[in-house]
């Protein structure tokens, strides 16, 4: 038990060390304040969206369904953000040799690692799920039982995302750790399973709203997400038995997660750390000259493909843009066919523009591009490379990666919906400018909050303050047109055309883009020198 507590404290301190990296108390306070402020704004925005949803459920007499939607949405988002971390957390961590050499039992090590990754899920989950509970209480009677259940449940909900992450990590690692080309196979398998799972959950979730309207809670949810169903039952009926079942299921998830990871922990880790005996390669060495910028781009590309967690974190958002474009486009067409009217441009363009930008903000590659250098940053710093060239290479790589997805996604959306030319231009420009702005913002955040002393890549990529702040800021910027659109009085909306509305937003994000890049090339350079 002592070992678990000590190790957990070490991991917590490691996570918080970024926040309090500076010895100045004001700097630490400012960081804390910034995180809390962003956290509150995002939670408020989520609450606002849930409130709108609850209003839609009110006419059918079931505003409480907002809780089911909220909890499902929270599970989905947290799963998307954390599930592929588990591999690095448990199997490819640099501290394996050290811990393996100490007299600490494997389950203790796993439990400490579990708790540290649980904490991350808890923070994200709290931000997205808690507003759903608040909205629930605004529409449904507040009982003592429900309040107690809500407070306790918040701490148990993340176990669901943990078990999925653990299972995924175990399956992929167990399959690949013995292979010769383990790194490539592991990366491909991780991408396929992660994207497949996300696509599956998206399809399942997309019909949930209609299911709730038509038949109440669907059977698949009662089975696959039984913990959410029993919590919902407990909250709405006050049933203690249902709440006990919820606790039992979530506790079982936690124990099972630790059990799964403990299974084969040593074998898999030893497999990953050992290198296959290589025959001395007789390949001819290539000596080809290129510019410093191209050399840096090549280096960035190789770094990207060598780190599954960095790759997946960066690629999920752009892939989601394509998925969103197809689903939004088809949704818009179906609705237009069903109501026999013209394309409901306002609604779908708003959703596409906001959510595609939001997807792009989830894993901005530049937000980890300094941290991923780790202790190797001295190489760049000691070489005669201008800081601007280093920044340009990192930004360019980000844009080479995301822009093609954004442009293809927007074209798919435009072709399927057949929206007007002016809206089509805006549907392309807004996500493009957003991704350019987010790249600048991400790099700026990473320069401000770099994490170089990491023991696993996921600490640099997923569990960093830089990613957290750049991601939440990007989500907020993306949600602005959505929130304003549904808040503006009809009188203003009827006067202002949709093109004018989006042109103003385009001007706004272009301005933000200019601000981010100006800051990057002035203040950012100073930050780089200080690292």
């Amino acid at each position, binding site marked *: 038990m002592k070992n678990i507590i000590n190790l957990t404290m070490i991991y917590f301190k490691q996570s918080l060390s970024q926040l309090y990296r500076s*010895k100045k108390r004001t700097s630490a306070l400012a960081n804390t304040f910034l995180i809390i402020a962003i956290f509150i704004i995002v939670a408020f925005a989520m609450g606002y969206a849930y409130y709108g949803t609850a209003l839609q459920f009110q006419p059918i007499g079931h505003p409480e369904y907002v809780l089911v939607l909220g909890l499902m949405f929270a599970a989905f988002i947290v799963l998307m953000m954390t599930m592929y971390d588990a591999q690095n957390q448990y199997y490819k961590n640099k501290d394996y040799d050290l811990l393996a050499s100490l007299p600490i039992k494997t389950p203790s090590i796993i439990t400490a690692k579990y708790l540290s990754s649980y904490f991350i899920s808890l923070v994200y989950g709290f931000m997205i799920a808690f507003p759903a509970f608040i909205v629930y209480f605004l529409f449904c009677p507040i009982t003592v039982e429900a309040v107690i259940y809500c407070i306790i449940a918040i701490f148990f909900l993340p176990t669901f995302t943990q078990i999925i992450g653990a299972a995924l990590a175990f399956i992929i690692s167990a399959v690949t750790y013995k292979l010769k080309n383990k790194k490539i196979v592991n990366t491909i398998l991780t991408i396929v399973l992660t994207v497949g799972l996300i696509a599956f959950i998206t399809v399942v979730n997309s019909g949930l709203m209609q299911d709730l309207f038509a038949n109440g809670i669907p059977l698949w949810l009662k089975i696959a997400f039984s913990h959410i169903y029993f919590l919902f039952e407990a909250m709405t009926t006050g049933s203690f038995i249902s709440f006990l079942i919820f606790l039992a299921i979530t506790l079982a998830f936690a124990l099972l997660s630790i059990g799964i990871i403990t299974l084969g922990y040593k074998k898999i880790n030893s497999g990953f750390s050992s*290198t296959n005996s*290589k025959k*001395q*390669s007789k*390949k001819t*060495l*290539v*000596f*080809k*000259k*290129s*510019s*410093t910028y*191209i*050399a840096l781009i*090549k*280096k960035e590309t*190789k*770094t990207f*493909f*060598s*780190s599954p967690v960095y790759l997946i974190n960066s690629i999920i958002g752009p892939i989601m843009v394509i998925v969103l474009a197809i689903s939004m486009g088809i949704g818009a067409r179906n609705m237009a066919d069903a109501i026999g009217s013209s394309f409901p441009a306002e609604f779908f363009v708003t959703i596409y523009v906001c959510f595609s930008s939001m997807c792009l903000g989830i894993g901005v590659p530049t937000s980890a591009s300094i941290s991923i250098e*780790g*202790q*190797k940053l*001295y*190489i760049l*710093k*000691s*070489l*005669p*490379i*201008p800081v601007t060239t280093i920044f340009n290479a990192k930004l360019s790589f980000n844009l080479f990666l995301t822009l093609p997805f954004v442009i293809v996604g927007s074209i798919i959306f435009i072709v399927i919906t057949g929206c007007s030319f002016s809206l089509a231009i805006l549907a392309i420009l807004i996500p493009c400018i957003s991704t350019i702005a987010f790249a600048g913002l991400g790099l700026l955040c990473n320069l401000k909050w770099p994490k170089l002393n990491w023991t696993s890549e996921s600490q640099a990529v997923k569990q960093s303050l830089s990613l957290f702040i750049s991601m939440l800021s990007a989500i907020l910027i993306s949600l602005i047109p959505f929130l304003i659109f549904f808040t503006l009085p009809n009188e203003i909306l009827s006067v202002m055309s949709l093109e004018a509305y989006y042109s103003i937003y385009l001007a706004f994000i272009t301005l933000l883009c200019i601000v981010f890049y100006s800051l990057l090339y002035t203040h950012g350079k100073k930050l780089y*020198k*200080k690292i």
Partner: protein
Amino acid sequence: MLEIYALAKKFGEKVAVDSLSLTVQDGQICAFIGHNGAGKTTTLKCIAGILDFEQGEILVDKIDVQKDPMAAKKQLAYIPDNPDLYDHLKGNDYLNFIADVFSMTKEERKAKIEEYAKRLGIYNDLSSPISSYSHGMKQKLALVSGLIHNPKVLLLDEPFVGLDPISSHEFKNIMQELANNGVTIFYSTHVLDVAEKICSHVAIIKEGRLIKFGTMQEITSDDSLENIFLELENEKHN
């Protein structure tokens, strides 16, 4: 030539380097010795432009490191004590990356990489990923990367750690050759007998302050470098 004038570097309240001044001329090999935490690595990092410093001036081949860091860095090579390299690259990719940064021609890089990689016994491993290298192989690759672009000043932090006896011997020869060709070599070490054999000069640092600097002969006179160093260290404790 390497010139350091009144260098001072602090980490918060802790003084890491205090008023350090020394000059290493072209063709000289200077050993930089001191106890753990004396400020050797910090000094080397300040010269390499990795760390900013509060006071003083550092000139690499007459170029101010703080005023024109790019020009200064073009004249030097820095190899840290525990080289963390880009593990996902192959050895040759890493060397090509360094050669690109120094705008080396195809012919130049081919000749230099072949020469130094063969001499240090790592040429046949250059097409393998760095992740498969042992500590010693990484050290050799880092040394090759520091040699290929003809630096005028070579900064080495514990360069012999991890090298096998053959490579260690070869690297000593390389150092001598470079010095004969006018390259300035400033390196930190704890291996005092090697320093005594190959260095023309020695600088001893204690708690951030330079306590001895001069030619090896002046410093050691009739005694060994080890005895001189231990004597100076003991003064601290007494």
